[in-house]
């Protein structure tokens, strides 16, 4: 039973199922278990038998050998290294804006990416951060295990400042294995481009999803305003009228374009989206456009 304001309500779960269908259709023709993104072919290959040890998966017991020898042997496969899809979700206080909030949208996106990774047989890692990494959940195996991620994500509140640079460094230091890294943030904080470039240089596949709320993309308030930063508490008084709003729009576009150019130059996918866009639209439309799924 889900709460009404639950980011992972029944409607969202239906969307996940829809995403799976779409994902399978988009990737039809490829072998099962292909990783999200650039796949590398078959996953398992038989290598040898070994004696059964308690805790081994029953599915891998070779019953033919048992029939002949009365001894339990399990089949060992030459297993290709499983891919990892890491989703870094910004949970700072600035993500609490919008209707629905950027954080809700980000949670849904993170869950969708993790789900698709599980569907593809990959390992899904969801990392939440504000000033530093707050929580990390790693799940692999069947797609039903997505519930572990949902449970962890459900009650994460927006809090703290945005520490993109430190969080990316911390993630990188704890994660030796190369993986696909999806950064979901409003990018309203210190510049983290150096860390992202470093990740890309070390073989990670970073992609950036910038989430903005409507009040950021199209502010409407005019008059004498005292703007208060939700994270730092700092204020700035401005007299906003139509001309200022138009100027703000230009600045915002420059900001987004700057990120787009940076990502393009480092072969990273970049998507800027509004938090009120439906997550399935975002994943299917925006991510397909951005080359994140085929």
């Amino acid at each position, binding site marked *: 039973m889900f709460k009404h304001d639950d980011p992972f309500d029944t409607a969202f779960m239906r969307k996940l199922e829809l995403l799976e269908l779409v994902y399978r259709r988009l990737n039809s023709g490829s072998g099962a278990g292909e990783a999200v993104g650039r796949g590398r072919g078959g996953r398992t290959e038989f290598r040898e038998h070994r004696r059964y040890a308690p805790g081994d998966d029953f599915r891998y017991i070779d019953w033919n050998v048992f029939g002949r020898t009365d001894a339990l042997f399990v089949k060992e496969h030459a297993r290709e290294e499983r891919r990892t899809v890491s989703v870094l979700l910004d949970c700072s206080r*600035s993500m609490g804006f919008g209707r629905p909030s*950027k954080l809700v949208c980000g949670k849904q996106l993170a869950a969708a990416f993790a789900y698709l990774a599980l569907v593809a047989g990959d390992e899904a890692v969801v990392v939440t951060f504000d000033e530093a990494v707050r929580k990390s959940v790693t799940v692999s195996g069947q797609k039903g295990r997505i519930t572990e991620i949902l449970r962890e994500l459900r009650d994460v509140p927006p809090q703290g400042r945005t520490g993109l640079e430190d969080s990316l460094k911390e993630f990188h230091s704890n994660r030796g294995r190369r993986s696909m890294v999806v950064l979901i943030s409003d990018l309203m904080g210190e510049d983290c481009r150096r860390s992202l470039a470093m990740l890309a240089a070390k073989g990670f596949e970073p992609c950036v999803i910038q989430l903005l709320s409507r009040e950021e993309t199209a502010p409407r308030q005019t008059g004498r305003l005292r703007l*208060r930063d939700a994270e730092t508490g700092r204020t700035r008084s401005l007299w906003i009228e139509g001309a200022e709003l138009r100027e703000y729009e230009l600045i915002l576009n420059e900001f987004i374009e700057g990120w787009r150019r940076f990502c393009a130059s480092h072969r990273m996918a970049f998507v800027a989206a509004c938090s009120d866009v439906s997550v399935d639209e975002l994943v299917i439309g925006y991510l397909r456009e951005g080359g994140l799924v085929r």
Partner: protein
Amino acid sequence: MSFLWPYGFLALAAVPAAVLIALWRARRREMPVPSLMLWQRLAERISDTVQRRRKLVDAALVLAALFALLAAGALAGPLLSVSAKPRRVVLLVIDRSASMNMKEGAGTRWDTGRRILGEFLADLPPADNVYIATTPADDPVRVGPLTPDEAARAVNAMQPTQRPADIVSDVAAALAAAQALRPFDTLVCTDTPERLPDGMNAIGVGGAADNIFFTRFASADNKVLIGVKNIGDERKTMLHLAADGRAVKKVPLDIGPDEEKTFILDAPDLADAQWVEIRIEADDSLRSDNYFYAAREPERRIRVLMVGEDNLFVKRALKADPAVEFVRGDDPGDTEGPLPYDMLVYNEAAPAKVRDCLTVVINPPKSFGHITVRGEVRRPEITAVADDPLTKDAGFSMININTARRITNGGTVLVNFDKGPLVIRSGKLVCMAFGLSLENTRWMLETGFPVFWAKLIGSASESRRPGLVYVRVGNEATLRLLDAETATRRIYPNGDPDAEYEVDGFSFGPDRAGIYSLTDGTRERTIAFSMLSPSESSTQGTSKTFDKTAQPEPAAHGERDVPLTGALMCAALVAAITCWYVKR
């Protein structure tokens, strides 16, 4: 500088309102944002424009206040006095009351006045400004400035109204309205010039002085009181008295010039009369004042008891008849002895017993006696069946019973009335029952509905009052009769407590045309109306002098008023547009 509508300055209240709105908008509000990062960049780019914006907002506030000031000034209708060539302003006040329709000689008084006014205007210098104001005050025409030629055309296009006028107060109202024009002179065209203030120029178009007219007329019991006055030369004429339209008496009248007579005439045939009319057989040209009418109070009011739920339509129809005394109460049931009512109306209730007086039962919830009501009256057919003895004796000849089924039940004859029965005993209608619902019929909203009840009341009256009395109450004037004053009674026209008429005995002579009602505090009844007042009848053809060549006073007319409303409105518009542009 003067102002046409000084109340327009009330719009100045908009100035503080505009200032308050601007200050309200300019107050600082706090707005949380996810990050100041982009706003910081904006602040760096527009740091110099913030101050400019502040100044512009101040300018917008000043412009908004200026707009409000200019708009208020424009609403006040300012007139700027500038030196100008002297130009005379002539105010014409023309009496358009009903009495101006009276025929005199070849034409009406109005025709005479129009002709004289045309001649007068043709002689005026073309540079004169003519303003026209007409009476009565409740239907005035105010036009001007016009050239004399335009004024003559305007007068030709006018017609008298059907309303009475009080020339004194109406002329005063017209003069007050024209005060701002500062007229050089005023000319009044009326048929009652003798009532105007001394020194006022007038064109009198009253009737010729060969007139005998009534000053008062009233009737009670078998007598009529007649007051006549002769302002002409003829002294002999005949008086014709009629009751309810039938001639009753004819008497000769001998009255000398300038003589006034009041006398009482016996008329035994007036016992059942509802309306009494007196007429002078005269050949004078003013025929309309040769008539006078009086309505007579019925000998005894018809008491109607309404039992059960209230019914607005029935109540209104019953109360429209001044002869009806409407009472609400409980069913008298088996009360011994005769009832103090002439008619019983049961609405949504059934009588415990059908009495001898007329009983009307509407929507009975159950059967009573032999009567069961099925269905509802939609619209009774109104076909006279005067030859039917039953309806004829009952004085009830409006229902078509030719197609209805009669039921004999002992001594009672039951006749179907549309969907309900009539009970007639010994030729007298005693009971009627029917259904009635606004959901199924609009009969209650039609004229036939009060007519139907008036017929019923007529049949309930012991005197078999013939004819329909359906008087709309709510007349132009109400006359209040104070019983405490026996020698002299006073009458106050409704809505005009300052006007007071002394009444000698039971007669009176209102000087305004219209229908009057007499009230003793609890009841009200129509009593008389008069086409012309004595003052209108006695008008002489007089005319006072108007100097068509006199020059206006330089002090009064050496300057001209230029209206500034348009200029102020334009300036206000410019201020509003600039304000909008600055705030954009």
